[in-house]
């Protein structure tokens, strides 16, 4: 949910696919209008919401937001199937939309009689582009999403390119992708001996990427893949890498080679889990709901301190913060892959910042004609006296001014 802004909504689907539009709509929370994040189903009325959304609503009113049947938080149950459905749907969505666009363009150009001599060529090519994006969509890195949308826009024009052009683009795209994954290197499983990859881009041809993502790539020549034993440590090393290996081996450095992209990608979901557990060093106590009216400001501040959340502000602010913290904490506990408490604290801060913003920055912008008129009416007296003052000041220089002008004449 913390990914960059990308506005997608059911209207992305063309009118010719009403069912896809409806499915897209059904997989969204009726409160936030985004795809369900940790879906929870109500046990009474059977409505489904994001965990955080419904918990926030219930702090306001203990009723189901959809049908207003009485509802408490204990009547919420996780709906894991919806979570999985959302995950799968989101993964396929961009790919499908891109393919639809490509198909629409192809049929458009065919209708205009611009079709080239080898019209059949566009078929397999389109499929290749599509399968390639599967590999990317499967990646769990949220930073990639942004790039993905731009790349999908590129694929539309790719239809007109030759096969080699497309492959070149794919190669350069892969390199861009790699840089995003670099931070995951430490978590990736150790590189296999045969799975090693060239450090230099110039020799990319013998680097074997994810095979499923690039079915058309030809296998590299067997020569560069042949392994030879290292004369120093007897380890089997790929022939093309033997000099690099020897340099490091003799210098006593690690001979582990950089992890290939394919392995990092395959490890996607496992990585997320690992990452979450690695950063979850700060574990904060589970908060409980409080009867705020029975608590003094001092006691509430101490409770907040014990929970490890900020204690600034007055009682009202602390109370609002505590309510939001309980919701964030409980919603996170519902998730199949909870995030670290440190990240939760950041979300709490972001929530508070977003809530506080109107007071200073946006207020001046709200002034409408009506408000201006009201303001004018309210301060009519002050305006009148100010105008009188200004006139008096202007009257004086008016008397003085003609003198210096008339003097030279």
């Amino acid at each position: 949910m913390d990914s960059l802004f990308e506005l997608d909504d059911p209207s992305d689907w063309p009118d010719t696919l009403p069912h896809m539009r409806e499915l897209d709509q059904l997989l969204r929370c009726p409160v936030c209008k985004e795809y369900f994040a940790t879906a929870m189903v109500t046990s009474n009325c059977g409505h489904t919401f994001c965990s955080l959304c419904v918990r926030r609503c219930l702090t306001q009113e203990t009723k189901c937001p959809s049908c207003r049947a009485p509802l408490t938080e204990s009547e919420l149950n996780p709906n894991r199937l919806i979570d999985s459905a959302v995950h799968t749907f989101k993964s396929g969505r961009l790919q499908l939309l891109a393919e639809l666009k490509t198909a629409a363009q192809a049929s458009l150009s065919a209708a205009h009689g611009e079709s080239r001599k080898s019209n059949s060529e566009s078929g397999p090519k389109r499929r290749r582009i599509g399968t390639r994006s599967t590999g990317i969509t499967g990646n769990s890195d949220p930073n990639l999403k942004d790039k993905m949308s731009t790349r999908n826009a590129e694929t539309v024009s790719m239809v007109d390119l030759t096969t080699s052009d497309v492959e070149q683009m794919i190669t350069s795209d892969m390199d861009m992708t790699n840089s995003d994954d670099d931070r995951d290197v430490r978590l990736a499983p150790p590189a296999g001996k045969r799975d090693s990859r060239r450090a230099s881009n110039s020799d990319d041809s013998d680097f074997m990427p994810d095979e499923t993502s690039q079915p058309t790539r030809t296998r590299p020549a067997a020569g560069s893949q042949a392994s030879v034993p290292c004369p120093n440590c007897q380890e089997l090393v790929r022939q093309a890498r033997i000099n690099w290996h020897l340099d490091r081996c003799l210098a006593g450095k690690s001979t582990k080679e950089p992890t290939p992209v394919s392995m990092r990608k395959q490890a996607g979901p496992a990585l997320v889990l690992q990452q979450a557990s690695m950063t979850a060093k700060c574990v904060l106590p589970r908060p409980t709901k409080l009867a705020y009216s029975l608590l003094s400001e001092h006691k509430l501040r101490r409770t907040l301190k014990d929970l490890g959340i900020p204690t600034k502000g007055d009682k009202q602010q602390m109370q609002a913060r505590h309510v939001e913290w309980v919701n964030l904490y409980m919603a996170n506990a519902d998730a199949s892959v909870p995030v670290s408490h440190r990240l939760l604290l950041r979300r709490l801060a972001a929530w508070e910042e977003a809530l506080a913003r109107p007071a200073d920055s946006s207020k001046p912008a709200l002034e409408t004609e009506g408000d201006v008129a009201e303001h004018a009416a309210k301060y009519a007296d002050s305006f009148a006296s100010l105008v009188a003052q200004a006139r008096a000041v202007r009257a004086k220089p008016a008397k003085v001014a003609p003198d210096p002008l008339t003097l030279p004449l």
Partner: protein
Amino acid sequence: MYKSGGSTALKRLMTEYRELSLHSPEGITAGPISEDNFFEWEAVINGPPETPFEGGVFTANLSFPRDYPLNPPTMKFTCPMFHPNVYANGVVCISILHPPGDDPNHYESSSERWSPVQSIEKILLSVLSMIADPNDESGANVDASKMWRDNRDQYNEIVHDIVRKSLGL
């Protein structure tokens, strides 16, 4: 690019803006006054046909709270308006705009009130039907309520005036 963190409200307002600009219901146009501030919207409502308001074009401002959609926006007409459910200062009094907790008038069933699953589109449609069919039980503008009930001709005449004013005639 904006990091989403705590801005559920902003994201939802942007989504609703997109939906409304793609498929806006008949007789209604709405959007943020400035793209810099998604919490202040302007709506243009066409007077519903076959009512005294027919032909008029009415402008209103919508102000959204930071915790939208937990709480509803407020709506205020920025043009002259004469209607039983609109205060003299232009503020619209309609059940869908009342937050779930408080019921100042003690007459609304909670099913008509604001809920986070409602939307801007639903608000504007409710206002449209309110214009066509006033609710004289909750008189925000007592004069208009009384006139609407007792002296419909005079009410229609004033409304015709307002329609002309709204068109700048």
